[in-house]
């Protein structure tokens, strides 16, 4: 199995595990799911370092979205 297939398979497996565990824990906040999925994406990408077309678009979108979620939480706590 090549690196590319292993990378996708690892991502799928960890996402499936995360969804199952968080569903069992009855977590009803979408933010929690998203933050964990974004972190899994970064970790798996760092481990496998797959070759991407141009810049890492998914990583960039995730980073912006991650910042948005974090700032939203901070403002909710401050406000």
């Amino acid at each position: 199995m090549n690196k590319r297939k292993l990378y996708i398979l690892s991502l799928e497996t960890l996402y499936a595990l995360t969804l199952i565990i968080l569903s069992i824990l009855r977590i009803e906040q979408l933010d929690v799911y998203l933050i964990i999925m974004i972190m899994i994406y970064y970790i798996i990408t760092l481990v496998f370092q797959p070759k991407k077309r141009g810049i890492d678009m998914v990583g960039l979108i995730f980073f912006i979205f991650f910042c948005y979620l974090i700032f939203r939480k901070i403002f909710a706590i401050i406000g």
Partner: protein
Amino acid sequence: MTNINETQINFEKQRYQILGITLMLMGILFTQYFYFILKNISLTAFGISIIIISITIIFLADDSPSPEIIKSLIESICDNIETQLNFSDLNERCIYLPPRENKIFVYIPKNQSKTSKSSKNTEISPKATRSMSQTEWITIYLPISILLLNSVKEKSIEEALYEILVDQFKTIKIIKVVESNNKIIVKMIGSKIENSQPKFKQIFGSFNTMISGSIISYFKNKPLVIMQENIVNANITTTFEVIEINE
């Protein structure tokens, strides 16, 4: 023929993109259905995970060398060996030897008419019980061997051949292996490479046959000869015979 090959290569390149786009559309539909109609957060997260994976697949680049690079690499290897063979009087089919120190060697019998008297009575057509010491031989090291042997460990013959010829080199589409006693028949369907080197073909068989022979000799750990090679259009059927050495 060339157009068909180019279409196949393009389709293989786009295979992941098609899969990614299909998954993304499904993910978007699922997410909207789960979030707005079912109002289930876990299932919505499932839909989002599908979208993430699909976008990841779309933006992933193919990490294997392109078929064009592999094809030119193979052609240069075959040309180099052909040039070497043209300087010799070798015409007989080679014997694939089991690897030594991770290197694949082949024995090529020297042309019978020019060999010594003692070797004249030896049959050149492969016989399982033939004694190798009676004929003069030339040993050739196949430079492709390191690439081959590192990929085939802990696999069956068919899996190893599939891994090398279909997945890595992309020189054929389908491969089937049938074993019977000391004979091994390899059927390779949809060959994408044609050998233009006559002497190479005469001695080693086609490129796909050469790779198959090298890998099978590694698995069997015994010498191997090509009994027959039939090439019809892009389909190759090769019969190998494992040589039992009398000790």
